[in-house]
């Protein structure tokens, strides 16, 4: 690509700006709403005229806190555990798929894909009945298990792609150097696959964090209810008031860990990818 003319550059900047605006405005509007007072919620203005922390007070200390704080805790615990299990299981599965030739390898991959494209809503009703009978209804493990079903297929697919990209020579070199299969895996393959592991972890965490259907249907109380489901049961201070402000504030709060994770791991991913290859 040669040097761009000023005209072309301007066109690119305008285009980029439009796309960024399109993506940012809804989020910015939610942030703005979270700072509006109850009365100003429907004033049809983009910026709050009287910025207030009232909504945040409401969800952290006020009426909403009974609902929001446990939900936040549930969400964090459920998603972290689900991500951890998914990543560890997917790592071994993907390694086997990328490295070994075993009967049923294609079956594992295609069934993983089949599960991934399966409409989530069709699983909810049977699970709801089953969970009530086996006592998993409204528990954190009862959410982790379906989350694994959501996150494992995509984790296996992404990670096996990463493992395939690692030259097999690396591992053979390690074996010749005297490593056991486990040592070769842990000391050579895992560090090399680290960017892949982090990418997968982020994707898995987001999938679990954003889930609404399972959270809503398989939980009922603050024992296990995650944030997205809890938001839907927010109520206003009176029957006639919509809880929009509080929901906006909660939405802003739950976005923070996601943004933070993306920023932290992004560094790792870029660092890992530019880490250097086998030969020049």
């Amino acid at each position, binding site marked *: 690509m040669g040097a761009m003319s000023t005209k072309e550059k301007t066109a690119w900047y305008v285009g980029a700006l439009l796309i960024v605006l399109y993506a940012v405005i809804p989020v910015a509007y939610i942030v703005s709403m979270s700072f509006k007072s109850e009365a100003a919620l429907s004033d049809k203005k983009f910026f709050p005229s009287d910025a207030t922390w009232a909504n945040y007070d409401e969800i952290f200390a006020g009426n909403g806190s009974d609902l929001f704080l446990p939900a936040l805790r549930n969400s964090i615990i459920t998603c972290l555990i689900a991500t951890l299990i998914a990543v560890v299981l997917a790592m071994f599965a993907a390694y086997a798929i990328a490295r070994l030739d075993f009967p049923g390898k294609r079956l594992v991959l295609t069934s993983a894909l089949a599960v991934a494209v399966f409409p989530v809503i069709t699983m909810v009703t049977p699970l709801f009945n089953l969970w009530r009978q086996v006592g998993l209804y409204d528990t954190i493990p009862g959410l982790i298990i379906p989350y694994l079903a959501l996150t494992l297929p995509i984790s296996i697919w992404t990670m096996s792609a990463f493992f395939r990209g690692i*030259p097999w*020579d*690396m591992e*053979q*070199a*390690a*074996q*010749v*150097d*005297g*490593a*056991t299969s486990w*040592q070769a895996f842990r*000391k*050579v393959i895992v*560090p*090399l696959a*680290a960017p892949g592991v982090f990418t997968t972890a982020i994707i898995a965490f987001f999938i679990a964090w954003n889930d609404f259907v399972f959270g809503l249907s398989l939980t009922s109380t603050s024992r296990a209810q995650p944030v997205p489901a809890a938001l839907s049961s927010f109520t206003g201070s009176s029957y006639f008031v919509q809880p929009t402000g509080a929901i906006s504030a909660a939405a802003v709060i739950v976005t923070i860990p996601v943004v933070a994770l993306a920023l932290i791991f992004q560094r790792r991913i870029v660092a890992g990818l530019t*880490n*250097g*290859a*086998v*030969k*020049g």
Partner: protein
Amino acid sequence: MSRIELKNIVKKYGDGFPAVNDVSLDIADGEFVILVGPSGCGKSTLLRMVVGLEDITSGDLLIDGKRVNDLAPRDRDLAMVFQNYALYPHLTVGENIAFPLRLNHSKVPESEVRERVQRAADMLELNDHLDRKPANLSGGQRQRVAMGRAIVRDAKAFLFDEPLSNLDAKLRGQMRTEIARMQRSLGTTTLYVTHDQTEAMTLGDRVAVLRKGVLQQVASPRELYEQPVNLFVAGFIGSPPMNFLPARVAGDRLQLPFCEVPRPAAVGAEHDGKLLIVGVRPEHFDDAEVTDAPSGAVTFQAQVDVTEWLGNELYAYVPFEAAAETREQLAELDRELDGESMRSQLVVTLDAMSAVRDGDTAQLWFQPTRMHVFDPVSGRNLTRDEEKAAKIGQQAEVLRKRSLERARSQNAQTPAHV
């Protein structure tokens, strides 16, 4: 320091095709053996079977007299340098070299790890780079790191899988001497795979030539060069390659495209009237204008097509018409040797002083005693002198043992230098 014995090693893949067929090879302690052959001859497969990365279909592999067929690579205690070096990109140069030692955390104390890495780095001149990552190194430096990783742990033998093929020509020459120096000073048994016959000739105590998975000849470089067993070995060893000329036996004479020579005693009268293949090395021709033909030499006139002057010598190309019967055979051989010559021509290496230029008619001579005569069907060398070959072999063995002993006594005197 070990002896490696291969006994009737066979490698068959799923389709039953034998990639390596009935190879037997005895590598003495401290010996530098080269496996050489054109691409696809099974040399890398054989090496990978020795190190344990490929299963052995049948036959026995012995290290120090112990059968190791079923041992995992890590239990064979061999060090290998891979073609693409297979350095660990996430580790520094120092950690790459230390890797084999670190695997046995309990056995090798940290101080010794550091000392041994230091020693390997000294030997390979990697001291300035120990904290760098492989990605930031040049090709030659990476190659040295890979060697450092191999020498650091006193393995029983070194295995090299085309270690120089990723380097450019100049660096390849330098690293070749470096490998030779390292092997001589350490005196470690070495098995080295290459398709480059220059590497094979310069590095090896003995060279094993493979063709389509079958061992053709195992001998010292000099014996391969002077007494090849067959057409394939003769064509593979030497650069530029040996010239093959069709020769019709007529009584006690051989009729070549350019001249007639007396029939060597080794070629029996039963060949009378038959077509044979005569092989003459390019460097065995000389320009009669520069050096006078000695007695017994055959002089002939040749129309030179193209010349290449290299400063130290001159290549002259002389086209000729090959008889149809041998043309097919020679073209087939050429394909097998990864070549693709379009015409039959004689290549002669002349003195750089020679005034022969493109299009000239040159007076050339050669000694018929230096030529080889091959059976065109079996490819067997009819003029191979077993007695001479054995003598060359013994001589090479004596020289090898002497240099090995010298290296070991030197090491005993200066233990600091590995």
